[in-house]
């Protein structure tokens, strides 16, 4: 049952600069943070790694700062550290709720924020042992030529199922990426692309070093649909941020995970004070149903994921807009 890991050279840089140099130097080098996604995939023979750049000793990536201006979370901060921050739980409920919904506390002791944002996409035909995939002629994402989910298509539909990304995107987070040319900062929503086999806009010699959001406290929530209460990736998950507008309307920022190869941002119009709430929320539900495209990448039917994520989005948006008026 235990699948032996392939041979690789393990290097453990102490600084971001060293890590970037190590990535640039060796071909097929790969970053390993907590390893709770990567090592599982390596045990399944899903990665050709010659040099494993293990980054848990880089102190500069483990800082968690909240000042008047921004909340900045180092990519090396573990999920349990993030979960322990009372300020974050209070001011950014969606981020906290997403964090504690990831895997289990045993994983969260070493799983990191960076690893969660860079999580590989998932599919029923991909997250399997080597012999299982081999007997199925592999697939487009790795080693094969066709996609078993959409055989007529020409791209992989594997789903991005990280929990933190939608919460951070709904908070309009920026991501800091460091490479040989230095640091670049982009909106987190622009970090992903809709291609299950190549979903991150990250070069092979770049490292995600931090993620940051404006430190204005907000009314927000995260909820995911799973088969089990813990240890389970989202079949779909949604983060909703709801703010009161000056004329007592509501503005929403909504992002969804688990349904597409990248997180999906839902562009929601403002709920004006005099709008008919029922019409507004039923339109929101329809908009979500139209915006997401879950595929046959899980054992649970795609149709169920579409309907339930729309229902949960509406439920969260309603609850938060009511709370705002208290």
């Amino acid at each position, binding site marked *: 049952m235990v699948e032996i890991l*392939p*041979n690789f050279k393990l290097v453990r840089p102490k600084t971001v600069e060293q890590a970037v140099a190590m990535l640039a130097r060796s071909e097929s080098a790969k970053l390993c943070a907590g390893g709770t996604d990567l*090592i599982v995939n390596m*045990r399944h023979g899903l990665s050709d790694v010659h040099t494993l750049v293990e980054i848990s000793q880089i102190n500069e990536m483990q800082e968690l700062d909240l000042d008047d201006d921004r909340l900045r979370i180092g990519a090396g901060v573990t999920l349990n550290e993030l979960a322990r921050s009372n300020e974050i739980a209070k001011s950014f409920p969606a981020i906290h709720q997403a964090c504690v919904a990831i895997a289990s506390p045993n994983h969260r*002791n070493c799983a990191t924020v960076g690893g969660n944002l860079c999580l590989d996409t998932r599919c029923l035909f991909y997250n399997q042992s080597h012999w299982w995939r081999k007997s199925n002629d592999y697939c487009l994402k790795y080693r094969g030529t066709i996609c078993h989910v959409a055989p007529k298509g020409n791209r992989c539909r594997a789903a991005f199922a990280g929990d933190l990304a939608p919460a951070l995107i709904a908070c309009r987070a920026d991501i800091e990426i460091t490479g040989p040319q230095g640091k670049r900062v982009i909106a987190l929503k622009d970090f992903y692309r809709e291609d299950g086999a190549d979903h991150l806009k990250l070069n092979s010699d770049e490292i995600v070093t931090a993620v940051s959001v404006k430190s204005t406290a907000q009314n927000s929530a995260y909820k995911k649909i799973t088969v089990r209460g*813990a240890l389970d990736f989202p079949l779909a998950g949604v983060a909703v941020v709801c703010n009161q507008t000056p004329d007592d309307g509501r503005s929403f920022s909504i992002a969804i995970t688990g349904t597409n190869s990248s997180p999906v941002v839902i562009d929601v119009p403002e709920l004006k004070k005099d709008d008919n709430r029922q019409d507004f929320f039923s339109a929101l539900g329809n908009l979500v149903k139209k915006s997401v495209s879950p595929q046959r990448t899980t054992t649970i039917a795609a149709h169920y994921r579409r309907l339930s994520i729309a229902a949960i989005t509406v439920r969260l948006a309603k609850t938060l807009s009511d709370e705002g008026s208290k």
Partner: protein
Amino acid sequence: MKQIISATINGTSCQDAIDDNLLLIDYLRKNKTLTGTKSGCDGGECGACTVLVNGQPRLSCITLAATCQNAEIETIEGESNNGRLSALQRAFHENLGTQCGFCTPGMIMAASGLLRDNPNPNDGEIRAALAGNLCRCTGYVKIIKSVRAAIGTSS
């Protein structure tokens, strides 16, 4: 590639030359013949392999041994003291928290990690802390009861 790892396992310091790709579970079970730690799944899904690394529960089946350099590792073999069961072990035994016993080493190590952080957890906290440890036999109720029974009992 090989490297030398120095670590403390259940209070005994050791130094070993190990392969870069050696998993902590294989280091413990094969190199150190500490077979109390169990392997229950393909990797990362069941919690049977839970050990403590620097006091925190970690899944040894997805941890590289070489990343435990200078760490303090604790396994189920370190729980008993001079042949006497620890409070958790005794509580699991007396409250039928263990049946086939396969999940028990992981359960006890995860529970031990919890009690160090939070010596007086409520049921919700016990459940949350053991959420990553699966059991095929007990139905969990007796496991929660066992941890509750161990609270406040000295070993």
